């Protein structure tokens, strides 16, 4: 970076100093791709000091004062000539004091710079009072910019880390898919130089990529480099699938990839250094959206009360994530995706604001998970941020923190699983036994408390022997249920039980289905101790399968022997 005095014009009549590119924007770094037209405000000051220490300018008032090497002040009614002029300076702040008489009197342009290390091509972006957010005029990597934080007497404010509106407050974010995110708050109200730390690192749980291109030849392309399509799109290579000629990309910006376009590899997002690799977009479609389908995952904000069945009872949460039966890994990547740089507008609104600015379910109160605002993934386990409730996932491999900041680990949900290629059409039955007999008097029916949709028993329902949904039997009569309330001693049933005799023996098998697939599994059962069970699989034509075994902490998975019975023809 170097200050280029020939880019600036002094208007001695208007008492303004203006960059010739202001309002046009061809030389701002984001367009130019470099900081070649941005220079230190110290050199800007030195240039003005030289210009005005000259006989031809002795009749002009002095325009600027240096207070420190990084703090400057307009003097005598001098100021910038254009609202964009400050974008061509770095390294210090400048103030137009109260009462200067200029169009920018009582304004402050503070200096903001970042320290830390980010993955190559990381675009740092800024949120300033939401209402005055500006698109980055800087390029990827650490930044050193001037920010207008006080405009003609009016401070721009952002809520600080405690949720208090702060004069000159800003938030800086670095959120590129494939990397761990970061953000931090900066208070620029004091002028001068203000450092904000921003660090990112590769996220080993976020390597799927946002999309992939089918290319003619991926040979020589390197993960971490950037691919530019001739039509203007630029993305960072997340991974390469050589056999299929796929190049997976993250953080695609600048346009859309198109069929048959030339693809060129660069080592930087600003396309300043070509690596020499190139190919063509060879697929029948321009690209394939990796995240397609994951948008079924929803996030609904609002206070909710949920019981994890871990013994802690119902607790409050602030947002419910419906994982749409997808895995925790997929859910994790999607929740990052909706918070990444560029997640703006209605599609990516999170908690009533742009997703790219989302920090927590209660900003200013909750501790933030900067690397992934909804929560992190370690191995296959999702660790939710405070107030995040997960439901309807492919599994329950998560640890949550409720709104009260108490960690809530789910119970040990286990299932009973039966597998056989001929399982379809068989009756699969698993139930607890004692002394060689199936326990059928686990509970007694409470007809007085039962209704057409509620089957009541007289005993507390044992949550460690009861699937979350399944079948409750009174004698041999089966009543499917979708949920139960252990304390209330009721099952939500779909068949009216009230014709049963009050006090009749009642029990809940661990599995009780007519198989319609080669793999049948029960709903979750909260494990708390081994259960001796009998597994029975029967269908006319097969010899009956009855084997006693144990439901353990790993659940129960069995493969019945279904031998043909030659007599059952």
């Amino acid at each position: 970076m170097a200050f280029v005095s020939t880019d600036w014009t002094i208007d001695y009549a208007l008492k303004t100093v203006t960059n010739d590119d202001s309002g046009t924007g061809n030389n701002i770094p984001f367009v130019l791709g470099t900081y070649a037209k941005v220079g230190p405000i110290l050199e800007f000051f030195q240039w003005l000091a030289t210009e005005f220490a000259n006989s031809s300018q002795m009749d002009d008032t002095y325009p600027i004062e240096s207070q420190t090497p990084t703090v400057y002040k307009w003097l005598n009614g001098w100021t910038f000539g254009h609202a964009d002029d400050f974008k061509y300076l770095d390294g210090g702040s400048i103030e137009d004091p109260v009462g200067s008489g200029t169009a920018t009197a009582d304004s402050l342009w503070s200096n903001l710079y970042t320290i830390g290390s980010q993955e190559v091509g990381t675009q740092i972006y800024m949120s300033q009072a939401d209402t005055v957010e500006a698109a980055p005029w800087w390029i990827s990597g650490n930044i050193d910019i001037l920010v207008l934080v006080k405009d003609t007497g009016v401070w721009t404010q952002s809520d600080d880390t405690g949720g208090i509106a702060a004069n000159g407050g800003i938030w800086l974010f670095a959120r590129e898919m494939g990397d761990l995110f970061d953000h931090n708050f900066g208070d620029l109200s004091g002028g001068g130089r203000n450092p904000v730390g921003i660090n990112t690192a590769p996220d080993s749980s976020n390597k799927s990529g946002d999309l992939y291109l089918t290319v003619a030849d991926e040979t020589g392309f390197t993960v971490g480099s950037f691919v530019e399509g001739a039509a203007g799109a630029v993305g960072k290579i997340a991974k390469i699938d050589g056999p299929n000629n796929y190049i997976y990309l993250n953080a695609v910006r600048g346009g859309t990839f198109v069929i048959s376009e030339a693809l060129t590899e660069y080592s930087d997002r600003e396309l300043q250094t070509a690596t020499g690799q190139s190919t063509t977009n060879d697929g029948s479609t321009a690209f394939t959206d990796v995240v397609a389908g994951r948008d079924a995952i929803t996030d609904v904000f609002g206070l909710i009360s949920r019981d994890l069945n871990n013994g802690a009872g119902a607790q409050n949460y602030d947002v419910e994530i419906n994982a749409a039966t997808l895995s925790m890994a997929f859910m994790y990547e999607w929740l990052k995706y909706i918070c990444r740089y560029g997640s703006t507008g209605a599609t990516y609104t999170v908690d009533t604001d742009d997703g790219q600015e989302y920090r927590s379910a209660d900003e200013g109160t909750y501790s933030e998970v900067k690397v992934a605002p909804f929560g992190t993934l370690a191995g296959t386990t999702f660790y939710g941020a405070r107030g995040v409730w997960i439901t309807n996932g492919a599994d329950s491999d998560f640890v949550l923190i409720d709104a009260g900041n108490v960690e809530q680990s789910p119970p040990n949900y286990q299932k009973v699983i039966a597998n056989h290629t001929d399982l379809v059409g068989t009756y699969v039955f698993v139930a607890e036994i004692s002394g060689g007999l199936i326990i059928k008097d686990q509970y007694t029916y409470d007809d007085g408390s039962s209704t057409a949709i509620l089957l009541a028993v007289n005993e507390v329902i044992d949550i460690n022997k009861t699937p979350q949904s399944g079948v409750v039997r009174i004698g041999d009569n089966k009543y499917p249920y979708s949920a139960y309330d252990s304390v209330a001693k009721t099952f939500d049933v779909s068949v009216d039980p009230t014709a049963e005799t009050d006090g009749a023996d009642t029990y809940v098998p661990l599995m009780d289905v007519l198989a319609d697939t080669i793999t049948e599994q029960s709903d979750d059962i909260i494990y708390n101790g081994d259960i001796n069970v009998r597994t029975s699989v029967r269908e006319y034509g097969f010899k009956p399968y009855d084997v006693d075994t144990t439901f353990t902490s790993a659940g129960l998975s069995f493969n019945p022997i279904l031998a043909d019975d030659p007599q059952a023809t």
Partner: protein
Amino acid sequence: MALTITIEGKGVIANADAETNDTGGDGTGDWGFTGSGGVSNGLTTDTFKYGSACIAAALSGTKNGWLWFNTGTGTGYPLDFDTAGAEEGQHIYIWVHCPTIGLTTTLANEGVTIRIGSATGDFADYTIAGNDGSNGWDGKWKCFVIDPTKTASNTGGTIDIGSIRYIGARMSTTATAKGDNLFISQIAVGFGLRVTGTSTTGWKDVVDYCIDYPNRAWGMFQEREGIYYQYGKVWIGDDTTPQAAAVSFTDSGRVIQAGISEYYESAAWKTSANIDYIGLIIEDDVAVTNGVTTFKDGVLVGSDKGRSGSTFIGNTNHNYSMDLYGGSNAASVTALYGTTLKDITGVINSGNDAQHNFYGVSFIASGQFDPVGACVVRNCSFAETAHADSALLWNESIDVRNCSFIANTVGAAIEHPSAVGDPYDYYDLVFSGNTVDGLNTAGSDIDVNNNGTSNASLDEGANTITYLSSATLTLTVKDVSGTEIVGAYAYIDDNNSTPFIMNTTTNASGIASVGHTAGAVADATWRVRKYGYKPFLVVADIPASGTKEIPVTLIVDPQQT
């Protein structure tokens, strides 16, 4: 390092220490005699100026004779004083002693002469004494300085000054004398001396060197009763490239008198040397490989005054000139502190270099001082100028203050040859007793602001000089350590539009000043700026007259690097 002193020009041609193969010159010249018979001549040790002997002749009764030195025709000989000749412009320095002037013929009959000839029959006489007059010479050893191009007192045959072989003295006696009565010692030919090297007693060292008679008798400098007599020019420094070594010539309190050498011609005593043959020239070279030239006289007092300077005195026979500016190297310095220049009627100039100082110098009955440029002239007096135009010649970058101009009646006090910078400012220039204070030769009318104590009032010339009373406005700019800041932009104005009251830069003393003749101004803007320092601004009134000085201390701006 001591001084190195050489004869500028031909040098010594005869030591008068051997009749045959004199050791001077090329060592082959011989002495001889032409004249009446019965005159003895030869080497004597009875009296001499140089060494331990001299050439002598004894003339008694009605006799005449020319005791001469024959240069021979070796390399560099005979001598060529003609136009474009090897010795053009040079003078003959010859020591002569004649204890019997009263026994010689009259001046009209060439009693005693310096005779030079291209042959013994082709000669020119320069009469130096007769029984009816000797111009104050008592016959003791004296170095006569002869310009061979001068009209001779007498000639014989046809002399060719482009081929001078015979140089000596002739005497014509009319009465009886006993013993040797015409003596000649060392003969030299040259313009004068060149002095290089280093000395803090420069003039004394030069004189002591020249009058070291056992070893040399260079007549260019002589000393009588503490007064140094100068015959010919003196070059201080060297303009060869590069100058062999730094030259530093410093002295004070000497009296240097332009020497007189006369002969009798057409019934009058006249100078035997060229009218312009005497002067002082400072030289330096553009290359600083080995050093520059420093010439200082007197003692600096305070920041702009001087004392104990030497006194240089010219005479009415010659136009003593002073070229005080080598001009090749800005690092060379000429500084005169308390020096007196009297009857220095030749050219006196300096140069456009603010390092050259003239503090407390008195220019009395001298020629016109042309500073040429920005040399600093302070507390000097210009009196009784001998120049028909003026005592001081103004220039566009002149830096002269606090000087007096007194009783200049032959010419004006100051001549203005240019109107480029009109109007001009006088700062504490005091005029009294002058016939004219200012001579305008600029070709157009000019205005002069009398600032401070300046009081010029009288003008002449084809165009007028209008002297305006003014207020002297001064910005004196220093840094926090009190060191003057040179080249700071200094500005004063009432409305920040042209023309400005002042918009200039500070001089070597950190001063910017202007004369303001437009009356009092309220709330004028006074600014000083220089890159590297925080700007200065004050709003202050300007008086209608008198002086107003604002001292300014500029503070370093660490950001202006």
